[in-house]
């Protein structure tokens, strides 16, 4: 039972640790790392679900009788590309945030935003 579903256990562990990192860490790069781990777990999930033990690639030949389902593998290629695009966009945003705020820690950024809001409010009152 445990070994037979090993892939799925790995998927669950990766998925949860990925999500946990996204939520728990304040560093923007670490958040993106967590997000990537989270997405990777889904890739493994799709790949494991289509794989049959001893199954072959979809090639028509007389001596092959067991096939793995190629469709989820192809689907997940698309999702991997999407994942790369997301990570790239996220990282370039972090670069711009670093330029604008001078830091990449969530708390500091929020602090700066709050300060600015307080300042503009004070101006309005004056």
């Amino acid at each position, binding site marked *: 039972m445990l070994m037979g579903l090993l892939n799925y256990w790995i998927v669950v562990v990766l998925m949860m640790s990925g999500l946990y990192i996204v939520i728990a860490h304040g560093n923007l790069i670490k958040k993106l790392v967590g997000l990537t781990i989270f*997405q990777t777990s889904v890739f493994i999930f799709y790949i494991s679900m289509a794989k049959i033990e001893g199954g072959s690639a979809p090639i028509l030949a007389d001596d092959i009788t067991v096939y793995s389902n190629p469709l989820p593998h192809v689907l997940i290629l698309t999702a991997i590309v999407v994942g790369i695009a997301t990570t790239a966009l996220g990282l370039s*945003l972090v670069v711009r945030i670093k330029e604008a*705020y001078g830091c990449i820690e969530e708390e500091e950024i929020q602090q700066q935003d709050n300060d600015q809001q307080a300042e503009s409010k004070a101006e309005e009152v004056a």
Partner: protein
Amino acid sequence: MIAHLPILQVIIPLMAAPICLMLKRTQLVWLFSLLTSGLAFAVSVLLLQQVMTSGLISYELGGWQAPWGIEYRIDKLNAFLLLIISGISTIVLFAAQTSIEKEIPKDKHIYFYVLYLLSLTGMLGIVATGDAFNVFVFLEISSLSAYALIAMGKNKQALWASYQYLIMGTIGATFILIGIGLMYQMTGTLNMYDLSQRLPEVAQSRTVFAAFAFVIVGVCLKLALFPLHLWLPNAYAYAPSIVTAFFAATATKVAIYLLIRFTFSVFGLSFSFTTIPLQTLFMALGLIGIFVASFAAIFQSNIKHLFAYSSIAQIGYMIVGFSISSVTGLTATLLHLFNHALMKSAIFLALAAVVFRVGNVQLNSLRGLGRQMPLTMAAIVLGGLSLIGVPLTVGFVSKWYLLIALVEQGWWPVAGLILLGSMLAVAYVWRIVEVAYFKEPVGPPIKEAPMSFLVPIWALVIANIYFGIDTRISVQVAEAAAQSLFGVSL
């Protein structure tokens, strides 16, 4: 040509996006984008006509037969949504060139249009397709371009808002992807119609329950249902004004479409509302959303923030209508989709005009603006009246249907709460009226917005009033769409 309309709807903006890069001159790119969006709108009008007269259109991509190939399936619901998205996109684009001149650096103008068209492609694709995995792909096309568009805002907060949206949006999209994977595991199909046929057989398995949960939570993240709305206010407030006008009217609507499509068509009514207590859950979240977001709106000093919170509250109304799960309730939701798109695009375009002249949309900067920019401020007020639901505006029509739907079920307390929620809208709209009309202007005199703003703004405001009086078209389409969802699935 006519037979290929479903794919043309999506492929026209997709192909136009890279062509923009080759045109090089901003004015030319703007005209080209406008033309593209206009073409997409024309296609959606033709599609809606065709669907209303002869029923469902099924288009097999590349001639591969469904359920093996990707199928584009246009019924009344899709056609209605396609019309809203492409229509709003076209009207908003009219004002785009003037607005971005002051908000986005010159060398990025062309990229703005490229991203805008890609985002449009994504939204149209999500709605047009009948394939579950295709939904995910288009969702990511529209989201990735949305993150980049929001990051173009001129304040540094735009970057932070975009980053937060990216994290939340990606988690949402990945949840949907997991849900689709689980469904595929159980049924071996990705075609939505095929899924709706095969899912009932395995409906009692834990995998399908998990799939349902993942899809619904993912979609709710995208539609900013309370309490998953945290990304929305900053994203709307700091994005370039044109982007806000476009997204406020369309992006969350597309997510609501997905929610309706997955619950009503794919999983089926009996599974979504009988096996799973979705009704109570969504009714509660919708109502809490209305009150929390409306209260938050009252205390905002940035008008864009104010209307962003109001958007979350309006989503609450749509969710309440949805959770009634009756034909009238769903009609109310679909009507409100259409009407809210009209109001919010009018209001946010008017705010874009204010940003153009004044430079910001802080409440204090609006002092006395009612006299200096009378036409623009009148548009905001009329849009606000529509948000409240005053008779003769579109807002009244959808609230009316929502109340009828609630009374039909005998849910008087909820109907009362809805009316109470509208009172909160009075409070936040009044704050703007008070500042704009009853305070003395400060600082240098400000001119009325240029025609490139006034024409699209007032086109939308007039539509707000027209569809509030002559409800034949919108109600007929919404009702037909709702009935078809309750009749035969898909």
